[in-house]
């Protein structure tokens, strides 16, 4: 059959500028074959490497789309016109893909079954699931926030997960760090998390980094990943993660929690703000307590970490409205979500027009914190150990035990001391008898050291601080007193 094939404008350069060709064929497929036989350069623009018509190449027989007929097997007759009509598609990529050559382009049957609930949604589909599989996400911290993060990103099929944590699983973690079980207490967190996530999804690559993130290793570590998720619990690391992400041009999915409130946003995108835009100066050391000091409702990091996982997945898929430039504030007690607009600070020393920070710095110095456990300004106060105290009480000495903790702590455990919370001491100091010998205690010895210091300055001479607090009392004298 003699048919005419109409060549679309963009392909005429490969067909000696002709706008049509005459071919001899029985079917549409043969007609296209005849065309590419005449003009070999057309082949790669019409067909994929495995010989299928590219999805944006539409073929019409006369004025009907062959998809609604027998596709390439559609028979042709003399005088028929086969037209090639482009359709045009495109769009923005949500993330900068680091290694195009390392891309995965298919899913196994098992993966298709595992992710079927993703695949049946047009917003995800095979294309989206492959993006997840090709994504590399680094989790800084595998604790309260890191737990739901790791679980949901692994479940979603993120192809490579990195877990950075140098801590060991502790009994007090189990109230919120739900990747760990009781049998994991004592194990390294990064390894225990890796094992749990690997069990959830053996098809993905999980790398554990049992190391503290520092200015010396951050850049090298981040380079192998596309997205960094900040699930840490201290300010120096927050600034470190931020700066490394800006220097490398990687998004930083941020989440934080405090008692009953949470925050989440996405830093590090070129058009959005960075952590320093929001907090140019870190808070004075000791002002913002950690979870150990302030407490946290266990499920709260579960919610905020899940939001971080959601934002990470949205970045990978390029779907929905991201939290770039938006600070999500969550009030768990009121069960309210609020939002603040975050603008890039044009004068930001890190991500603004005139960058002045070009490398990572000493973040502990920046935050005014020296070492891990920064004690309160060096308080030299007279001390007494729990054993010494016990000995003196057994001897019958007349000692006034002053407990400077909070009322709810007294209910957890006490050694029958007289309760006077530290914050109320200045107001109620007249209740104390300076002629008596006083031993002040709290949970760990820090607050009571401040109390002793205060009272000595107020003229009390016979006063000692119980070294190590009620925790040490439990360890050394009376194990029946619960630790908390």
């Amino acid at each position: 059959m003699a048919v005419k094939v109409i060549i679309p404008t963009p392909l005429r350069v490969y067909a000696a500028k002709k706008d049509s060709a005459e071919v001899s064929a029985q079917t549409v497929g043969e007609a296209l074959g005849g065309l590419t036989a005449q003009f070999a350069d057309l082949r790669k623009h019409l067909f994929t490497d495995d010989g299928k018509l590219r999805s944006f190449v539409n073929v019409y027989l006369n004025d009907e789309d062959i998809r609604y007929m027998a596709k390439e097997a559609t028979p042709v007759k003399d005088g028929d016109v086969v037209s090639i009509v482009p359709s045009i598609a495109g769009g923005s990529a949500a993330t900068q893909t680091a290694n195009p050559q390392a891309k995965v382009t298919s899913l196994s049957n098992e993966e298709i079954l595992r992710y079927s609930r993703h695949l049946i949604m047009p917003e995800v589909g095979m294309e989206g699931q492959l993006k997840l599989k090709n994504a590399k996400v680094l989790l800084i911290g595998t604790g309260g926030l890191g737990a739901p993060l790791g679980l949901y990103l692994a479940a979603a099929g993120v192809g490579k997960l990195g877990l950075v944590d140098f801590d060991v699983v502790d009994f007090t973690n189990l109230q919120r760090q739900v990747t760990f079980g009781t049998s994991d207490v004592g194990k390294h967190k990064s390894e225990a998390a890796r094992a749990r996530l690997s069990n959830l999804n053996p098809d993905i690559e999980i790398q554990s980094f049992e190391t503290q993130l520092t200015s010396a290793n951050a850049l090298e570590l981040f380079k192998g990943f596309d997205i960094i998720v900040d699930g840490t619990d201290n300010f120096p690391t927050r600034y470190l993660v931020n700066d490394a992400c800006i220097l490398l041009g990687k998004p930083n999915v941020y989440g934080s929690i405090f008692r009953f409130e949470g925050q989440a946003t996405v830093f590090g995108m070129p058009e959005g703000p960075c952590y320093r835009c929001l907090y140019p100066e870190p808070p004075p050391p000791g002002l913002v307590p950690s979870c150990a000091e302030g407490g946290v409702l266990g499920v709260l990091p579960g919610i905020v970490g899940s939001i971080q996982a959601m934002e990470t997945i949205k970045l990978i898929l390029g779907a929905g409205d991201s939290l770039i430039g938006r600070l999500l504030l969550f009030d768990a007690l009121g069960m309210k979500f609020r939002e603040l607009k975050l603008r890039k600070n044009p004068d930001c020393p890190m991500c603004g027009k005139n960058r002045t920070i070009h490398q990572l710095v000493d973040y502990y110095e920046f935050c005014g914190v020296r070492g891990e456990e920064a004690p309160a300004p060096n308080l030299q106060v007279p001390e007494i150990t729990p054993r010494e105290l016990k000995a003196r009480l057994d001897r019958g000495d007349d000692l006034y035990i002053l407990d400077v903790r909070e009322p709810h702590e007294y209910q957890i455990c006490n050694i029958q001391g007289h309760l006077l919370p530290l914050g109320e001491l200045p107001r109620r100091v007249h209740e104390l008898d300076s002629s008596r010998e006083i031993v002040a205690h709290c949970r760990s010895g820090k607050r009571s050291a401040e109390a002793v210091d205060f009272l000595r300055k107020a003229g009390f001479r016979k006063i000692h601080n119980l070294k190590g607090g009620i925790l040490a009392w439990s360890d050394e004298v009376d194990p029946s007193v619960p630790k908390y």
Partner: protein
Amino acid sequence: MDAEAYRLNLSHELAEGIRQHGAESFPHECCGALLGRDSAFDDNSAEPSREVLELFPLVNRREDSPRNRFSVTAEDVLEAEKAARQHGLDVVGWYHSHPDHPARPSQFDREHAWPWYSYIIVSVMAGAPAEMTSWRLNDDRQDYSPERIEIRNRAAV
């Protein structure tokens, strides 16, 4: 052909028209056809250049993901070609916007691109049109070459 050889001329008004369409469609991607002609086809000028003389704005057919995807169906293409023919022009390329993303072609762009067409991308940051670039797919389909956009004050006929 190397990058420097590609040149795209369009008037200030048309460039503004593209930016406006991008701003109006924000936060979704906009798309449209570029109608014009190539000077290289008509004469043997030393520097082949392409002139955009009209815009043919289209409706983004990607209703499921219009924030970061656009789609022009074959029917839309035929419409654009018909309009071009009526004005004695060709469809020389396409424009679309990248809401809150740089005006750089993405992996998705590359996988779906046609050679020879000029692809204009305008970045629309938080509703405000920003950078506008133009690109041509390389023959081997592996990458794009940037096309220099030259804005003229008046359309040259």
